[in-house]
């Protein structure tokens, strides 16, 4: 007799909603969803919430300390994705996979957690979290692996609709990332698929630092899932349903640090033998004391390992460039290279949401391993729309701060540098002005100079915000005549003040 399991149904319903909405935030290629909604959906993820010290992080910690790792099953998109993959994999199998109990990989997961915590404390969380944050890993899989085929499908529909004589489906450019940036999500994606298809939630209990952290809290949870030994017939149904391999029927225990609170075991137990039960956290300390006496000091070993790993991670973030300018142009609101690379976890949400498609994942443009996969402006491909503030609005990490439209319009992210020798006007003696045409601040004017008989582009640096419209528009090849130098630290530009244009005669001038 199976009773309907409310907890499991609530979990599945919430998880479905979460993965659909978070995926939608990354796959929305027509900017249908408001930027604010993308922010709200992602800022409640644990790492962004913890980095911004928001109430959501506290809530996740409290829930974990009360009920265990509910976050991992209900809110974490990478966790839910793994459930989807395991389920699909089982559908393809003739015989359902049977995962036996497995000893925890505590050294590994605690070492990774310690390395992450130390690196964050040292200011290099921007490097470690960019690789290990589950939410950001999900973001990259969605943005780099799933988005292109979705847009490709849209374009197939566009071609079809065009042949049917309708323009209802417009074509959208497919944002292929460079191979170097495409590989990490591909490899991590392959790892996730493999691990989840064959070992359920193994990733969450070995490599994921959030899983490890919440696992530590779950150890002290006030309510834990536990097997009622008097009711248990050792039928093994719960074991079969457990994706974390954390039920040990021999001693009748559930390793709650690895349990992701999916409640599958609760629903399959015909004896109703698995339930949340109040646990006095003090009991743990009493039991722990005796165990620790007989075992080697795992904590100390982990700490040493973590310190080494943490230092290695920190060392990779060494700043290689000097001076005011850098090779990469930071998104407006990123403030400075240091604060940006320290906070951004490379989730790709801003890149997916950028209506101008000017943001691209970096390779080595930031001259730091911390900059890998993080957004920068590719001003040969597009430019930063003057009145757009989307990247700062969506960013869940506060790595790009939200700017009011008026503040954005004076936020200088770079400075246009003009090289007259490459300019069409100077080189060919013909009119061009594509750069001035696009300049939104009138910092760039075509004006008389002593370099050439005809007026040339002239940049008034004090008004330039570095949006790159001029660089994008410059038709000179192979080398553009105007290029943006990225600023290491963003500045506030002045606003060109001009008199109102005077009224004309009230006559027809012809």
């Amino acid at each position, binding site marked *: 007799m199976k009773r309907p399991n409310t907890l499991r149904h609530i979990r599945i319903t919430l998880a479905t909603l979460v993965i659909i909405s978070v995926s939608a935030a990354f796959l929305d290629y027509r900017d249908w969803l408001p930027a604010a909604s993308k922010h709200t959906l992602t800022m409640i993820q644990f790492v962004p919430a913890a980095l911004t010290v928001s109430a959501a992080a506290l809530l996740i910690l409290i829930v974990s300390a009360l009920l265990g790792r509910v976050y991992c099953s209900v809110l974490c998109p990478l966790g839910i994705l793994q459930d989807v993959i395991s389920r699909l994999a089982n559908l393809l199998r003739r015989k359902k996979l049977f995962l036996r109990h497995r000893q925890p990989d505590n050294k590994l997961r605690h070492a990774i957690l310690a390395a992450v915590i130390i690196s964050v404390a040292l200011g290099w969380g921007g490097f470690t979290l960019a690789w290990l944050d589950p939410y950001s890993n999900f973001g990259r899989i969605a943005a780099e692996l799933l988005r292109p085929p979705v847009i490709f499908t849209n374009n197939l529909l566009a071609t079809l609709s065009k042949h049917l004589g309708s323009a209802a489906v*417009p074509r959208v450019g497919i944002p292929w990332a460079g191979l170097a940036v495409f590989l990490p999500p591909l490899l991590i994606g392959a790892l996730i698929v493999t691990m989840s298809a064959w070992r359920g939630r193994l990733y969450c209990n070995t490599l994921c630092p959030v899983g490890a952290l919440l696992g530590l809290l779950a150890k002290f949870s006030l309510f834990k899932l536990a097997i009622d030994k008097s009711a248990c017939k050792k039928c093994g149904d719960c074991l079969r349903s457990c994706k974390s391999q954390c039920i040990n029927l021999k001693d009748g225990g559930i390793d709650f640090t690895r349990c992701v609170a999916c409640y599958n075991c609760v629903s399959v137990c015909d004896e109703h033998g698995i339930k949340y039960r109040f646990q006095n956290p003090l009991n743990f300390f009493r039991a722990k004391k005796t165990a620790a006496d007989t075992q080697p000091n795992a904590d100390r070993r982990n700490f040493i390992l973590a310190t080494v790993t943490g230092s290695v991670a920190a060392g990779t973030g060494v700043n290689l460039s000097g001076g005011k300018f850098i090779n990469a142009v930071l998104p407006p609101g990123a403030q400075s290279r240091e604060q940006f690379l320290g906070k951004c976890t490379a989730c790709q949400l801003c890149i997916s949401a950028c209506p101008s498609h000017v943001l691209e994942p970096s390779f080595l443009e930031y001259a730091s391993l911390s900059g890998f996969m993080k957004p920068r402006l590719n001003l040969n491909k597009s430019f930063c729309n003057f009145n757009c503030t989307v990247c700062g609005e969506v960013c869940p990490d506060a790595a790009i701060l939200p700017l009011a439209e008026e503040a954005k319009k004076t936020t200088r992210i770079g400075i246009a540098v003009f090289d007259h020798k490459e300019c069409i006007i100077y080189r060919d003696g013909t009119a061009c002005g594509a750069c001035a045409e696009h300049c939104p601040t009138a910092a760039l004017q075509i004006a008389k100079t002593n370099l050439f008989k005809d007026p040339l582009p002239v940049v008034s640096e004090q008004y330039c915000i570095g949006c790159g419209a001029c660089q994008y528009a410059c*038709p000179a090849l192979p080398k553009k005549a105007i290029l943006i130098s990225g600023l290491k630290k963003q500045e506030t530009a002045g606003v060109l003040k001009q008199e109102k244009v005077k009224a004309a005669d009230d006559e027809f001038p012809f």
Partner: protein
Amino acid sequence: MNSRRDFIKQGFAVGAAFSLADLSGFFSREASAQTAADSQLLAGPDGKPYLVAVRDGDRKAMLDRAIEALGGIGAFVKRGQTVVLKPNIGWDVPPELGANTHPDIVGRLTELCLAAGAASVSVFDHTCDNWEKAYANSGIKAAVEHAGGKMIPGNDETYYREVTINGSDKLSKLKVHQLILDSDVWVNIPVLKHHGGATMSSAMKNHMGIIWDRGYWHKNDLDQCIADFIRHNRAPALNITDAYHPMMRNGPRGKSADDLIPNVRTLLASRDQVAIDAAGAKILGHTEDGINYVKIAAATNLGRCDLSNLQIERIRIS
């Protein structure tokens, strides 16, 4: 001097009023008198004015008067024809900044074409800013869709087809938006603006929004390319220039409403894109052949920039 100018102007105004009132049968003597006075001046191909300039009304009213003066919308759009309108929607800015053609004009023209029995009215531009944002923020999408027209994207190369331009100096082959090539009628609806590269943007410059590779023009003598393109065999049936508050500086994008001449309140209409640009040049304070590409185009005899030899109907509303 003033009085003579006024007298002539009043004469035109009276003539215009009669022709508009469609009472020419009753006032045949007056009508013919005007024709006699204009006999030295070049009229349009159907005997209507070569160029119409309307002042001081709201945009829709000025458009209605201009179209009427050119023989009504039926002179351009026949029942069952497909129509494409090409306003300037280059920029993601609101109408009051004057960087795009005003939505009232595009919306009203959509209505007129549909009322004339057009099978469909499509509107597009190859925008500079993000096309969906520019379509929305310019107010043109709302105006066109409200009037029953369709907004069509111009942001992807697959919408463009290669054409050959014969007898041109710089352009030989280039890609033009399929709507321009496939529609029965196309109407060019620029906004008059200062332009950092080409000095002025209006009807001829607006053609850069129906082609794919603008960079080629910028690279290969912009003025010559703009002028060469009037040889394209799909010329607009009609050009309508929005000169309500022309942008005087920082064009073509503009920085603020301070860049606009506040009181021009003019709308121009002509079949000849060169003549309408010569008139636009005068409004911006240039001579009629003061814009390089206008001068080059006029030299081909495919358009006129000698305004004093053209029959111009000047209408002042209010």
